[in-house]
């Protein structure tokens, strides 16, 4: 399944279900937020490529093949494009956006393939 296909399947029902699962796992009190987000929201990789939160959430993303450097993998968005494109890292909020990501149901912990951190941007 490719990224675009997953995008099409990213229905509101699925998003609500993911948020419920996130809350369930959080309630168990035995998992870190980064683990929950990365594992749970993996199926909705970059729900919108123009979604600042999707990019901003990309710490946990796995969008290409390789390491941290390539985590913007298929997007092809070099750092120089971030500022004007509305996908700036300033929107990431220093990692504080976990609580705000439930409604969007998007890519707090994306996973799209094999990669490391370098490839996530």
């Amino acid at each position: 399944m490719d990224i675009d296909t997953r995008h099409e399947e990213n229905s509101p029902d699925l998003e609500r279900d993911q948020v419920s699962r996130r809350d369930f796992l959080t309630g168990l009190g035995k998992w870190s937020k980064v683990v929950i987000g990365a594992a749970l929201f993996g199926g909705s990789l970059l729900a919108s490529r123009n979604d600042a939160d999707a990019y901003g959430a990309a710490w946990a993303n796995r969008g290409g093949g390789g390491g941290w450097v390539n985590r913007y993998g298929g997007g092809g968005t070099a750092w120089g494009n971030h500022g004007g494109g509305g996908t700036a890292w300033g929107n990431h909020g220093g990692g504080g956006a976990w609580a705000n990501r439930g409604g969007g149901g998007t890519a707090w912990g994306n996973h799209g393939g094999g990669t490391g951190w370098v490839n996530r941007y």
Partner: protein
Amino acid sequence: MPERLTYDIPIALTAVYRGERTIIRIYDPAEIDDKISSGLAGDIACLRILSPDGVIDPLRRHFPGLPVEFELHDPCKKLPLLYRYAPLLSDRPVRVSIPLLPGFGSAVKLAASLNFAVKVCGGQPDQPLVEEMLRIADYYLRRPAVTEPIDFFHSLFLAFYHHDPVTLWAIQDEDPAVVRYVDDHGNEALHPRLSGGGGKPVTRFMEELADDIASGNECAGCEFVVNCHGYFKRPRKEYRCDGIREVLRTLKDAAGELRRDLASFGPSPAGDSR
């Protein structure tokens, strides 16, 4: 489609690699000035600061948005650097590279608490370091407040969770088929961690690893060989992996436990196994 190479280059070679995807290495942020800044263009993946003792102001002035990784060479003595670099987090991803040395765990915890992404680098730990790694694996997995990835634990956990064959070489940016290290003399070389490689061609490195595994070394019967791919057998091939397997087992068991927790919640509307 073949993956596009990323070149890990010293800043002096930026003109040579113009048009390529690059990681730019620099020793001190104070080296950055208007001339250097204007010379950097194209597909830059991140800026890697090798000696981060200087001031960070040049980074803030010249490279808004550019992901930065800095190396904390002495994780016990250099902790104050984490506070110095923390302001950069407001406008970019910042990762701290922390060597696998005694006391590294304290640096990892402080970095994670400040919302840095973390990369633990190095391999072949002795038993006391393995025990420290186990404590950090538990911290990464179980501490609710942890919001940022701690690699390689994070990417390997995800690989186990998703049955993803990504290797530790790729996770650690040491796979020469993904990230090609270029030394200060302009030569394509193996990652510095592997400097004992004996000058063998970079492009043959992964083939040689596969040959070693096929020859029946400790990797041959190892349950983690798909993702590890001999990572802990370099640079010293004779290294015994009993301890490191405990670390990998912890991550793999946790991935299974998370699957079971999610299964207990009920089936997913997506119909997958989450």
